[in-house]
């Protein structure tokens, strides 16, 4: 196994070639905030929260998709990165309609928790209050586009793990949204197996069980991780 050595903050590390900077940091106990990334799914670097600085380069790199390389010197927590991360969270809050007080995910929301982590006590950007819809056509689940941050975890879990590919990303710019089927109501999409994986990995209250009311939705990414572990290692009993 080929190994490369690198330094992340004050830690000198040796990791197998092909390891991402995010994996290397986490193995060393160095925290890098993430939102679209989820262990068990492919990495897409959509949210930009895991950006890190590399010495000798002005270009910031997303830790979730950047491979560690020999001699790299990486910084994960600089004033510039802290400012970018707070701005990213402010952009997400102001772009949609996130009303924590009446949200199913209040108290269990990754976006809400990240706002605390980046120190967002208010948004310096103006709120857009976009007009967005809610799809309640599925028998068991609902999709509230107001709370969607387009992380695409649902798209990836349905395609890569369930193999149903119900979800996709439709339209562009401010009209960009998650679509089911070919832009049909979720309940009309026959490909859906009703497995609920998309609901379990959604980091906000965008995908939810219809029986959940305020503060009742709990995400369950650990179930995805247990499933992927079982598949990858052929270990089906705990």
């Amino acid at each position, binding site marked *: 196994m080929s190994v490369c050595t690198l330094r992340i903050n004050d830690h000198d590390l040796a990791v197998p070639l092909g390891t991402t900077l995010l994996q290397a940091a986490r193995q060393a106990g160095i925290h890098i905030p993430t939102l679209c990334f989820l262990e068990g799914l492919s990495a897409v670097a959509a949210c930009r929260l895991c950006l890190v600085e590399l010495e000798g380069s002005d270009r910031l790199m997303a830790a979730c998709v950047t491979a560690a390389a020999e001699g790299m010197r990486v910084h994960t927590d600089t004033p510039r990165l802290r400012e970018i991360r707070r701005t990213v969270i402010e952009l997400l809050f102001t772009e949609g*309609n996130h009303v924590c007080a009446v949200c199913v995910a209040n108290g269990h929301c990754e976006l809400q928790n990240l706002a605390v982590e980046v120190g967002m*006590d208010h*948004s310096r950007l103006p709120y857009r209050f976009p*007009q967005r819809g809610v799809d309640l056509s599925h028998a068991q689940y609902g999709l509230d586009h107001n709370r969607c941050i387009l992380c695409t975890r649902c798209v990836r879990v349905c395609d890569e793990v369930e193999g149903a590919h119900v979800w996709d990303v439709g339209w562009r710019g401010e009209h960009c949204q998650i679509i089911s089927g070919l832009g049909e109501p979720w309940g009309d999409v026959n490909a859906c197996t009703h497995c609920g994986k998309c609901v379990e990995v959604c980091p906000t209250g965008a995908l939810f069980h219809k029986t959940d009311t305020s503060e009742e939705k709990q995400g369950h990414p650990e179930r995805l991780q247990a499933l992927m572990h079982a598949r990858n290692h052929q270990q089906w009993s705990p």
Partner: protein
Amino acid sequence: MSQAIPRKPRLATVWLAGCSGCHMSFLDLDEWLLELADRAEIVYSPVGSDIKTYPKDVDIALVEGGVANTDNLELLYQVRANTRTLVSFGDCAITANIPGMRNLLRGSDPVLRRAYLELADGSGQLPHAPGIVPELLERVLPVHELVPVEVYLPGCPPSAERIRAALEPLLRGELPHLSGADQIRFG
């Protein structure tokens, strides 16, 4: 030579477009309110004073609620002009929150029509009483999108402990530095 006795900070609380839950949480300070009454002069407050017009020379103002109508806007401008430290008090003041959900209907007219005509049982009419019923603004806005704000105190409502964590330094003439889930989490 006698030393001048330091003046007690002059404290106001203001209620704009919110449910008054932040003020209820303020009252949850319970016995600490007695200490607060001793350490500060309560010069304006829907729950602590009977004064109807916003006074001058206020040191600290907790402002609850978004800015939804012409009365809210006028009062907010008075608060800003006469207050040293303006605290945006709770999620409605900071994000527009629940009152801001009407912004999805795009403007005051669709909101009034929806509430007073479409959902009325036959005898609906649009409210119109100039000078008595304040006109709705086109959009509900957070306080800091209209006037500068010194301190943000999120929460729906902020807990009594969180309010006290902000007030303690303010009463000493310092700005609070709130952080962590206990002090700045929305919702």
